[in-house]
């Protein structure tokens, strides 16, 4: 399949020079170096071949800037890296947002942090940084922001128009679950347009990653997505393991699987409660906390923390599990099956709930591809795409489970997907507990200060919200040269302006809730 794509591309686009790379080491199958002239053709080729834009980032190599496009598709694994070198003195690239809508936000992000200007971009406004910052943070030297760019820093001073008024949904609002701000232009109860403003919780995690050792960055991963820290732990740890070639014992792999799934359960449970609270039903919120508390207790025993876990280590885990963990988890799984029946009568069969979610925020598979959303939102449009199945990490390749997917793509489907996801998680946990072997839980010979070989690596895992991708460039020193995170909440939020347009404010809130956003993850 991969060779077919390379052959097709090399004939379709002259001078594309696509080459196959070692997937096991690099995490991507094809590498292409594009030029400004054929970039548009290459991206168009991937659009025609029904690929989706997985990620987009920029790396400053001092002599040149490299803009990277990652493409992948839902049918077979074929991650493609398209690299475009540009001159830092004249950082202009043609925008790809006319082909892939999702690119618009990635391009804005790159513009904000690197100063790369994307020509013909619909809206290059800053949305992460505040007004005081007059340099590009992720550039390797201090590059000042040109004066004509500075005025964009306060671009969200909204002008009132006739027949319409604007509302700031957030940054402090009960249903944005954090400090997300959405500028809504309203006509009475109807939303004319919605524009998210990010960065109220921006901590520049990617820059932090460049400034500290590989091990030192590990606790930061849990702070990005505080509801699914295990997945973020796993994403980072697996990436570095791939980069350095560290083996992981079987017992550690199984325990990783169990803890990731327990964490997924707690995340989905909290989402369920919070979503119902968005719709005005406050009681389920407290019921799910009851269940979630049990997960926290189980994980607290082995990790030492209840929310932002830092459990995984390169080559294994921080701590071994014991009989009590196994027994406790089994008892919890049994209990949660019983509780699902209650949630079904309280929520799933509730007429008001169904009427509030059915037909709200409908998405389709073409939109999924163009905007690049992932996780339960993607599976709700009928695409059974799950990183756990496609690129198994931990012990997922040894466990039998199916990927739930619905067809309509409305908010009700996104709810149902997450409920089925929880059932799948329970099945995975049961199987993993049965196959838990004896043995070491961590590889002994991992150096404290790691110096991975030169090179780059991309790795993805399936977090509760979707696809988390980590891209690390190593220059052979003990700190990463560049670390990039592809976070699912960010890529899922790109669709929100489209979803909110023309709906009632109540439906916009319902759609926003159904995307399951975690704000620190968006802002990083």
């Amino acid at each position: 399949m991969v060779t077919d794509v390379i052959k097709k591309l090399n004939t379709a686009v002259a001078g594309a020079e696509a080459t196959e790379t070692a997937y096991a080491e690099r995490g991507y199958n094809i590498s292409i170096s594009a030029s400004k002239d054929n970039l548009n053709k290459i991206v168009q080729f991937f659009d025609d071949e029904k690929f989706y834009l997985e990620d987009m980032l920029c790396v400053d190599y001092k002599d040149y800037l490299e803009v990277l496009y990652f493409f992948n598709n839902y049918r077979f694994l074929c991650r493609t890296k398209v690299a475009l070198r540009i001159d830092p003195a004249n950082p202009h690239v043609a925008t790809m947002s006319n082909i892939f809508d999702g690119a618009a936000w990635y391009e804005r992000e790159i513009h904000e942090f690197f100063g790369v200007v994307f020509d013909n971009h619909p809206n290059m406004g800053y949305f992460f940084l505040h007004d005081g910052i007059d340099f590009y943070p992720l550039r390797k030297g201090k590059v000042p922001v040109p004066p004509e760019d500075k005025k964009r820093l306060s671009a969200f001073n909204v002008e009132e128009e006739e027949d319409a008024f604007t509302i700031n949904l957030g940054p402090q609002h009960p249903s944005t679950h954090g400090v997300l701000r959405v500028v809504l232009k309203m006509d009475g109860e109807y939303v004319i347009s919605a524009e998210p403003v990010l960065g109220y919780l921006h901590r520049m995690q990617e820059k932090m990653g460049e400034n500290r050792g590989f091990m030192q960055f590990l606790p930061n991963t849990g702070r990005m997505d505080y509801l699914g820290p295990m997945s973020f732990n796993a994403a980072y740890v697996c990436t570095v393991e791939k980069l350095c070639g560290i083996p992981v014992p079987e017992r550690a792999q199984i325990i990783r699987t169990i803890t990731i799934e327990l964490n997924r359960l707690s995340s989905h449970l909290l989402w369920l409660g919070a979503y119902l609270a968005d719709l005005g039903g406050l009681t389920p919120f407290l019921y799910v906390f009851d269940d979630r508390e049990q997960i926290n207790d189980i994980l607290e025993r082995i990790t030492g923390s209840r929310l932002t876990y830092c459990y995984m280590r390169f080559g294994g885990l921080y701590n071994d599990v014991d009989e009590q963990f196994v027994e406790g988890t089994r008892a919890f799984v049994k209990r949660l099956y019983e509780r699902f029946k209650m949630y079904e009568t309280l929520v799933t069969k509730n007429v008001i709930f169904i009427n509030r979610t059915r037909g709200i925020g409908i998405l389709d598979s073409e939109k999924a591809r163009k905007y690049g959303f992932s996780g339960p939102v993607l599976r709700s449009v009928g695409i059974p795409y799950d990183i756990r199945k496609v690129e198994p990490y931990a012990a997922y390749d040894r466990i039998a489970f199916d990927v739930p997917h619905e067809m309509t793509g409305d908010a009700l489907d996104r709810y149902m997907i997450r409920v089925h996801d929880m059932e799948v998680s329970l099945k995975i946990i049961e199987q993993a507990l049965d196959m838990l072997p004896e043995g070491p839980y961590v590889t002994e010979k991992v150096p404290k200060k790691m110096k991975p070989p030169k090179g780059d690596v991309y790795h993805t895992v399936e977090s509760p919200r979707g696809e988390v991708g980590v891209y690390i460039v190593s220059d052979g020193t003990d700190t990463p040269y560049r670390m990039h995170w592809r976070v699912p909440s960010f890529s899922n939020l790109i669709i929100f302006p489209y979803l909110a347009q023309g709906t009632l404010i109540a439906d916009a809130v319902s759609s926003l809730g159904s995307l399951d956003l975690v704000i620190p993850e968006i802002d990083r």
Partner: protein
Amino acid sequence: MNEIINIVGKEVVRNVIGLVGVLVVVVVNVLILTWVERKVSGHMQRRIGPKEVGPFGLIQAIADGIKLLGKDIITPEDVKKPLYFLAPIVIFIPVLVSFVVIPFDSFLQVKDINVGILVIFAFSSLSVLSLLLAGWGSNNKYSLIGAMRSVAQNIAYEIPLLLALLPVIFMCNSFSLKDVVEAQKGIWFVVYHPIPFLIYFIAGVAETNRTPFDLAEAESELVAGFHTEYSGMRFALFFLAEYSNIFIICAVATIFFLGGYQGPILPGIIWFFIKTYALAFIIVWFRWTFPRVRFDQLLNFSWKVLIPVSFLWLLITGGMLKIL
């Protein structure tokens, strides 16, 4: 005492005592209902609710009231001051008047007016004016949307509210609440009119802005709707009015459909309060079970379902009365 009565007249003394009594009932009712709401919601949500202040947390509401009284009265900048100040008062006064005509027992009624039910509706309709004042005066877009919603909602739901009561009024030929109760000596009207009872109750929940119809507040959409900008005692007045409105809605339902103070063995007043608080409990139960409906669904439900059905029932009742 007799001299005072002789000087000012029997009727005036009776009214003064009655009004003081009404004030006491209003305040005590709010204390009880907030306690019930917090305790019931606590147990419905696997919590235990208030328990520290007093036995079973019974005087928690008093502690809260004192706290609210002691709070700084904050007036946000740029509010339209007269409207902003007026709104909490306008919402509270009509509630008091409604209590005047409610017969708590055969002998316990401040004033039996021959258009009692109309008095209640006339005055409770004023509450929508207050919500509009609050929403407009707050100079806050969320409040304004909340106020707009509440106006549309109140107009839509006052119609089925009154239409559902009309069959009962047809049957006893009187607007006086006491006459209505007296007419239910044998069988409660809920037996003859189960569907109007349901319509009245649903519309009543909507009229009091309670979940699932709390669109004027709609925490997750409009922050707190019309009372976003109110705090301290001004907020407490909205709060008092909300719980008093619940009581009035439940009391009218009791009077019209559940036989009012009629009941065996126990004294009438006990029966009245048992029935009223049973209905109030159901309203609390609703709130902690259902999510919120959407605005258009809410209006459609009133105009397309409740109003036609209540008209139909009215026609049938009228026809039956004519024939029998």
